[in-house]
């Protein structure tokens, strides 16, 4: 046996290798494949797609002007004129739902974008630099978390009139702590991971390490929490509406449309009026949760079957 006499690693090519892989499959495809396996998640994605589409194309899809009142048709039941009935001022519920979707989704997406941004920045800084900075930032997060947020929310809403912008701001201000903790955790573990250490020894700057190495790897959990966050905000707006502090009429939002469900007169006499916004909230939040769940699986390297 003379294997030693044929040094394989000298010369060029040192070790003739077949191309490593026959199928060059990018990560997103891999994740898509995992995602597609979760039937609920797929259903959720389709639903969301439809809902977001409906919101975008509301002006074309809505059969009527959402603010057009026909006082005589107040609380009309679903029928030919009003596919989903009319509200207490005789406005078309379907049209209002479609335009309400814009508001509800806008509030959801915008405030989550805000809170994800704040949370990611705080969490990334705390997790990457650690030490005192981390301690200070995390104490601050603790304080915000310990805050009875709904109470403060009520106070805030009384300070700033509950316009769309203030609601977005308020939800963003309260929503970021979870993301911050999550991102911090990810950064804490990722900054010790060997590929980050390698980047450091190669002299790659901190900024680039954070944005180009750690963040993309922490993106999974962030996206998942964002997805779930949008659903949470939509629910939160509905809850605030219940207390009369949500998006204020006449701007339609699902929350303030559902608010009328409190009224036993409407609940008993015109159940269809609160039913549809309720269903919209339910379906949308459900869809976001399904999608979030699917994404969680797709991003999770542990789950591979």
């Amino acid at each position, binding site marked *: 046996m003379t294997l030693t006499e044929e040094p394989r690693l000298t010369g060029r090519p040192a070790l003739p290798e077949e191309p490593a892989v026959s199928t060059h499959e990018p990560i997103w495809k891999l994740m898509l494949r995992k995602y597609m396996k979760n039937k609920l998640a797929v259903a959720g994605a389709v639903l969301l797609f439809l809902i977001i589409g409906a919101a975008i194309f509301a002006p074309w899809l809505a059969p009527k002007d959402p603010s057009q009142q026909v006082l005589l048709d107040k609380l009309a039941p679903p029928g030919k004129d009003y596919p989903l009935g009319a509200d207490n001022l005789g406005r078309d519920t379907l049209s209002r739902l479609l335009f309400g979707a814009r508001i509800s989704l806008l509030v959801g997406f915008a405030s989550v974008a805000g809170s994800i941004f704040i949370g990611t920045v705080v969490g990334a800084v705390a997790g990457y630099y650690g030490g005192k900075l981390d301690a200070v930032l995390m104490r601050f997060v603790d*304080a915000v*978390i*310990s805050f*009875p947020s*709904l*109470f403060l929310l009520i106070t805030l809403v009384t300070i700033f009139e509950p316009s769309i912008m203030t609601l977005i701001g308020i939800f963003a201000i309260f929503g970021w702590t979870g993301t911050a903790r999550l991102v911090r955790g990810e950064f804490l573990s990722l900054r010790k991971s060997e590929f980050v250490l390698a980047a450091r020894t190669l002299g790659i700057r901190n900024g680039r390490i954070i944005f180009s190495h750690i963040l993309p790897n922490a993106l999974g959990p962030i996206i998942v929490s964002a997805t779930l966050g949008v659903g949470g905000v939509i629910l939160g707006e*509905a809850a605030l509406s219940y*207390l009369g502090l949500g998006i204020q009429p006449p701007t339609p939002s699902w929350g303030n449309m559902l608010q009328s469900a409190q009224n036993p007169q409407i*609940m008993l006499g015109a159940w269809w009026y609160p039913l549809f916004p309720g269903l919209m909230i339910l379906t949308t939040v459900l869809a976001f*949760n399904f999608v979030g769940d699917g994404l969680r699986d797709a991003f999770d390297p542990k789950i591979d079957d």
Partner: protein
Amino acid sequence: MSAYIIRRSLMAIPLLFIITIISFAMMRMAPGDPTALMMDPMIKQENLAAYKESYGLNDNVVIQYGRWLGNMVQGNFGESLIRQGVPVKDLILARLPNTLLLMLVSTIIAFLISIPLGVYSATRRNSKTDYAITFISFLGIATPSFWIGLMLIMVLSVHLGWFPIGGVANIGEPFSIWDRLHHLILPAFVLATADMAGLTRYSRSSMLDVLRQDYIRTAKANGFRKRTVIFRHGLRNALIPIITIFGLMLPSFIGGSVIIESVFAWPGIGLLFMDAAFQRDYPVIMAVVVIASALVVIGNLLADILYAVFDPRIEY
């Protein structure tokens, strides 16, 4: 351990301090003041001025905060501005037990129902029951709790008359546990739903994680039955992360209590806060904020202690 508890509690003080400053600032930024309620043709402006003066509302906000803090440190929450002459402490003491009771019972309900469900779901992963439980959990997460509450009231209370429409007890009747429970069940259940659903999902994934662990394989290799493996070897490990969730759930419970209290006319601190906020009853607002934050802090402390109890790896 007790040293730890003391130290942790001391650490909470600056936290509460920050919270009170923020709340006070916010509150005083809100437009309007307690006199808004006194809109009445028979009001004389001088009277209002005297009223404001007598409660020190005309002073600099910083001075007011200092005064408030000084009193608070001595355990004095001051007097209500609306319910003149009534110490805030009395208002809180009258309401707090109701809120605590509601939270306690719904926490118990949430844990008692969701953990077994989650565990069951995890052990039957991908079975029909698992899917059903998962779906129902998602429904629970996605349905606004006040909506569930209103529905239940409409159906169970108004239509069927099985439950009272609100309140903590029948008025004027002697104390009875049954009567209390009768009033408590619906609100506690509804307050529990949202967290219950989340908790079920969480205990499911926690249990799934545990079932992947090496020591579970060891237990199986030792010939223990499935049930023994799950309950004796798995459950306690699965509970540990759930305890943390308990700590995190508290703020949402306290927040949720505002809504549930108003749906079910439950006279707790949430309703007190709502009223106080609208009436600008500053001392009451501050007291509730302090109490609620303290509750969260205490809850987290409790979670930490429980954590140590369940996880022998944690040492103080």
